[in-house]
């Protein structure tokens, strides 16, 4: 068995629990990594660990990912640091407080801009890069919340749905660009800081490591939309099929 060619991965939102679990998988395969988040102290904590776990190189970059004006230049710069880019993972996001976002414009804007606008602009820049290279895998984390609007999280859900359509378009576009691919991951409920206030008892909750394993596999092969874990495909099929008069009686 020959080792796969070394991966060169840029992770946007690397402080996320899911992203860190992914980064560990890449590190164990001696990948080179650029990890991007907005707290250099925390990024360095993660970077030291990834290096000890076997990453060939780890470069930490502190950045507000929702405020970046030149994502394409950033990719070039990071590519120079680690000798090219073979994978981009877009993991950052924010859930936002649904009730608050219904009356507080700034709160709603922050969630929409972070989860959709910023993620979309990074995705477009990565798509350009991979199209030119005719290789590379772009993975973005969407959410099952984007599959149907529900009163408990529809602002977040709407942004994730938008990102989903964008990624679908990119996947179509990259289909004609050699080996380049785009994948949207749709996690269900995951035990992370984002859901730290929720009750995690119940069978539907997954651990970040499980999602990371799925993302990692999607980086190597598979279709453009991946539910994580896979059971959510069927759960969301059922939820999408609920007629409005039933849906409106639930507390989902």
């Amino acid at each position: 068995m020959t080792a796969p060619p070394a991966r060169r991965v840029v992770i946007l939102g690397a402080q996320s629990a899911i992203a860190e679990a992914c980064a560990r998988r890449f590190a164990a395969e001696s990948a080179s990594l650029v990890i991007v988040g907005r707290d250099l102290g925390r990024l360095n904590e993660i970077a030291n660990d990834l290096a000890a776990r076997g990453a060939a190189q780890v470069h930490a970059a502190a950045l507000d990912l929702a405020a970046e004006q030149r994502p394409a230049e950033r990719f070039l710069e990071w590519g120079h640091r680690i000798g090219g880019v073979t994978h981009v993972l877009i993991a950052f996001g924010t859930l936002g407080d649904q009730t608050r976002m219904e009356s507080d414009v700034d709160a709603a804007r922050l969630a929409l801009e972070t989860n959709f606008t910023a993620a979309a602009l990074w995705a477009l820049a990565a798509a350009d890069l991979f199209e030119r290279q005719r290789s590379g895998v772009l993975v973005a984390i969407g959410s099952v919340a984007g599959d149907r609007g529900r009163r408990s999280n529809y602002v977040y859900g709407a942004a994730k749905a938008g990102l989903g359509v964008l990624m679908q378009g990119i996947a179509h576009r990259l289909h004609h660009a050699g080996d380049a691919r785009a994948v949207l991951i749709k996690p269900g409920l995951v035990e992370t800081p984002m859901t730290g206030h929720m009750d995690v008892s119940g069978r539907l909750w997954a651990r970040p490591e499980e999602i990371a394993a799925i993302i990692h596999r999607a980086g190597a092969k598979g279709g453009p939309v991946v539910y994580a874990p896979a059971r959510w495909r069927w759960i969301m099929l059922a939820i999408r099929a609920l007629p409005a008069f039933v849906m409106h009686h639930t507390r989902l």
Partner: protein
Amino acid sequence: MTAFARTERLGSWGRTASFEGAVARPRFAGDLPAVFSDPERPTTILAHGLGRSYGDSCLNPGGGMVSMRGLDRILQLDPAARVLRAQAGMTIEEALSILTPKGLFLPVLPGTRYVTLGGAVANDVHGKNHTTHGSFGRWVRRIGLVRSDRGAMQVSPDDPDGLFAATVGGMGLTGLIAWVEIALTQVQSTDLIVEDVAFDTFDEYYELMVNHGDSDYRVAWIDCTRPGYGIFTHARHAPIGETQPHPRTKAFAVPFDMPGFLLNGATLALFNRAYRGLKRRRHGPRRAHYSTFHFPLDGVRDWNRLYGERGFRQYQCVIPDAGGREAIWEMLRVISKAGDGSFLAVVKQFGRLPQPGLMSFPREGVTLALDFRNRGQRTLDLLHTLDEIVLSAGGRLYPAKDGRVSANHFQYMYPNWRELEARRDPAIQSSFWKRVTRA
């Protein structure tokens, strides 16, 4: 935002005690001081590793808990100097899977790999090599501690105010352990050369322990229903071979609470079969991966559910060698007379290396560990009788396994307890500590 936003249920391994309340889950080093200054922090908190302690020493009902699992990063790994500095929520399983491919190993391993480094320090855990290697704390070079009154700090063995010695075996009471720096050993292979030998008198057991004094690891199982009978196992690291971490495969999980009677009967039957096999002919040494030798029970996830809904109690004591045999004999007699006790006991030898912690459990002598299905008062009475035998032989109990020893007995066994109390972080408390320090 508060770090104590969620109410959770946390348990301990024996399933006789549990906690329900506010739990914080810090992920980064900087989150630890914030846990103490949190506006919604319960008056007292307690760190929780993986809840592999059996009783109530890892629980703080009425207060809050801090799950340390999110702090699981390597801070520094220096293979040449053989030193690992890692955050306290990293498990022994994770550490071994990173270390073994590099030919590095942890010098002391408890009987399960699902233990955090913080938990290993806080109970100063021991392995099957205490006579030569001492307890876990002997290999700890520095500890990063975060306290409510002193903030983030480092302690090391030469620490003048005794906070290092209080933290090793300190049951989490001296502060949140943020990270641990530990000296490693080197191995040529992750395989062990293991040999089992059956014995049928206690004298034979002692003889085997002495004769195989140069083995890396030694342990025995004895049959409580026939005192004196047992299987002695010793192992050494193979001189050459592969360096492979334990397999990542999912362990078979116990799906629901099994009625307790299944377990004792079934394990005893297996044991007897092995025993008869060994008696018929000596098998000689075999090669085995360290995980099957060190962590035999990790192959069955949630095996504690085998004891049924009411859970079980583990009893572990150490008895000094002088008079030790008689005391153990007496304990086994009491247990087999009670009729519903443990069927198998694990026996290990502790050596005379100095103990690193103020409250470290190991001391020179023989240690005995037994499981008892929880039958309420009846079990408590039996264990209380055992306490008296242990006490009169000059022995003591392992707090990590206890959930019921009386304050009186505990204070007699650990006369140093006031020194730990003096160094306890005022914002930290546990149900165990409240119980055993009552006047």
